[in-house]
């Protein structure tokens, strides 16, 4: 995971953009300033933090704390305060979703393989295979406290549902400590801003159609000023105006299976081991913090056909794509 850890500084009309790769996504930090030194300093601080979080919590990195916990399932593994707080947050999400959201559900992916629409028949698992992997799922079987976490043998956890959003929020906190200049942090489509742009202008954020081969772009020089482009055309981008808070998208239209004409999305029900029926392809949520936005989008997807109703009831600003 240490490959390609370079940062690229781009000069815009009234801002600097620091681009880098992290968490398998293109990432960007925009700061609205003419101070190049500040932009570089900010870029260094944020990339250092994002890469630190990636190194610590990525399940793909064999040296991460996450892998250490997973490789030592059956024994207590020492954790620090930050990990405890993240686990506590995950615990809240598990409770709130009555078990639908479960950071130990990653092992189900061994049974399911969502590669897109090709060769779908060969990857559709048997019920027995799903049931077997389900034995190793269940947050309630995991014990953790402020000092240690203990997984049962064969279990795994991953921070995929919350780690990137957490990194966005941490980055904004660090940005605010460094500068009063407006900052936007975008980690592969999950993003947050430190506040409005100069003169109380909004940030214009384009959410690309998930069917297009990209996720979210930020375009600070855009002159679009509508709150949301009120188009219903699924092929066009949506433009979201943000003055504060965060935005996160959950769901990925490119990852699905088709069997007997039914399209199965990659969102799995941690309790049954099967894909959530009739879930939207993606949901984008606005909230004060990225981690809230991300989890609300995910919790909504887990509601399947009820996703939009769920968010409407919570009086949350969101966009859903089906």
């Amino acid at each position, binding site marked *: 995971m240490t490959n390609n850890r370079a940062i690229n500084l781009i000069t815009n009309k009234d801002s600097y953009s620091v681009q880098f790769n992290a968490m398998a996504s293109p990432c960007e930090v925009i700061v609205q300033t003419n101070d190049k030194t500040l932009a570089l300093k900010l870029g260094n601080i944020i990339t250092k933090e994002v890469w630190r979080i990636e190194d610590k919590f990525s399940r793909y990195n064999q040296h991460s704390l996450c892998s250490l916990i997973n490789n030592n399932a059956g024994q207590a593994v020492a954790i620090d305060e930050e990990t405890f707080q993240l686990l506590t*947050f995950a615990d*809240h999400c598990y409770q709130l979703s009555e078990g639908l959201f479960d950071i130990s559900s990653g092992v189900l992916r061994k049974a399911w393989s969502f590669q897109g629409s090709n060769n779908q028949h060969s990857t559709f698992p048997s019920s027995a295979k799903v049931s077997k992997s389900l034995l190793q799922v269940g947050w309630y079987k995991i014990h953790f406290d402020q000092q240690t976490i203990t997984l049962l043998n064969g279990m795994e956890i991953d921070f995929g549902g919350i780690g990137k959003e957490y990194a966005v929020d941490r980055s904004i906190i660090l940005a605010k400590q460094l500068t009063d200049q407006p900052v936007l942090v975008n980690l592969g489509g999950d993003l947050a801003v430190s506040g409005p742009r100069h003169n109380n202008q909004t940030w214009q954020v384009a959410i690309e159609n998930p069917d297009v081969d990209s996720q979210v772009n930020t375009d600070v020089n855009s002159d679009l000023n509508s709150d949301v482009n009120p188009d219903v055309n699924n092929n066009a981008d949506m433009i979201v105006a943000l003055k504060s808070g965060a935005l996160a998208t959950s769901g990925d239209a490119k990852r699905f299976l088709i069997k007997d004409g039914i399209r199965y999305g990659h969102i799995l029900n941690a309790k049954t081991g099967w894909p959530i029926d009739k879930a939207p392809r993606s949901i984008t949520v606005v909230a004060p913090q990225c*981690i809230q936005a991300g989890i609300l989008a995910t919790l909504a997807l887990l509601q399947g056909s009820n996703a939009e109703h769920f968010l409407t009831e919570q009086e949350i600003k969101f966009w859903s794509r089906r």
Partner: protein
Amino acid sequence: MKKITEKSNIKAVLTIAAATLLGTNSLAHAESNTFEAEPDEWKFDTAVLFYSETDRVSAGEAIFNAQKTFDTEEVLNLKLTIDTLTGASANGAVAQPTVQTFTRPSGNGQYQITAGETPLDDTFKDTRVQLNAQWTQPIAPDYTVSGGLHLSKEYDYLSLGINGNIAIDFDRKNSTFSAGFSYFQDTFSPEGGLPKAFSSMLVGDSDASNWDDDFQTTRIGSDDDKTTVDILLGFTQVINRRMLMQFNYSYSTVDGYLTDPFKVLSVVNNNGEAQDYLYESRPDSRVKQSVFAQSLYHFDTTVLDVSYRYMWDDWKIKSHTIDSRFRIPLGDSFGKESYLQPHFRFYQQSAADFYQPFLVDNEAMPAFASADYRIGEMTAYTIGLKYGMLVNNGHELSFRIEYYSQKPTDAGVEEIGVLKSVDLYPSVDAVIAQVTYSF
């Protein structure tokens, strides 16, 4: 598909959970900072409160609160309170086995108290209008300042005040230190003027030609002032994701006219019979200090709020207050996002060193004396219940009902003669009802 229950709580729980994880907010702030609180919007609260003491004072209060949060995190809060008070209040004299006659504080007319009854002045009637304006803004990362103005006007009372406060966050905003001061200037101008300390209440024919002149000899003037300076130091600490603690210390000094011009003391003879009524006399300064600790604890759905205050002053009053509230969400079964909140408060105070229930004829006069039950030794408790729910458009409607009981303690003074047969320490019971609507 199983649906998520307690939908209403998800957003709030996530707000608190995220704030704890990121250490960006105090718990209290996270609770109030719901998603709907978007900048540039006014938020209004209105409340109507009724307070009624059995056979005594009834009070009605209407509160109108408006708050606006600006884009740049400044907050303007405006509050208008209107109180009306009617009914009877103990005048300080002791009950007697015979009828007693008292002159009204204004000097206009008399009232009589039945044998055996605690003397109550039933001319108590006042309307108070109070205006508060408060401006709060961040001045630097982790530094928030606030300043406010206060104006309160009653028929015979004017109070003007200013306050200032600074709050400093540190330890990733898990800790907040605050320091505040306030200054009040009050003017008291009761109808009939201010009585001379320890002068005898003039009782007689208020229509007589020499009445007004005689009454004036018991007066020292038409109005007087007092000034109050308060200093408050506070510390708030987020203990963990469920618990918040707050500690306060306050120092308050009051100078000026602190006597209650409506209160008297009975002067009794060796058989306990009232011979005279003297207007009370209090020192012209008071220094109060208090320490306060509060803890908010979030269980999975319920919230427990417990606080304790210890107050002491140079009048030798010491008091202990324990206050607790427990918020129980009821889900959507009894109104949308409804909750119940039981309330319990316990209060105990010792008497001021110059408190005495009555004076004895021909005994040496103390420098100060007051028979006001409010500065005597007492125990009081409040039990109450609040019920709230969301109505249309997310506006909150709540109802509160409380019962208050105050029991004075026997001051240990020898009860002489006829005083043995009367109640020198009557208790006070009151019912408080409040309706609040936030929109």
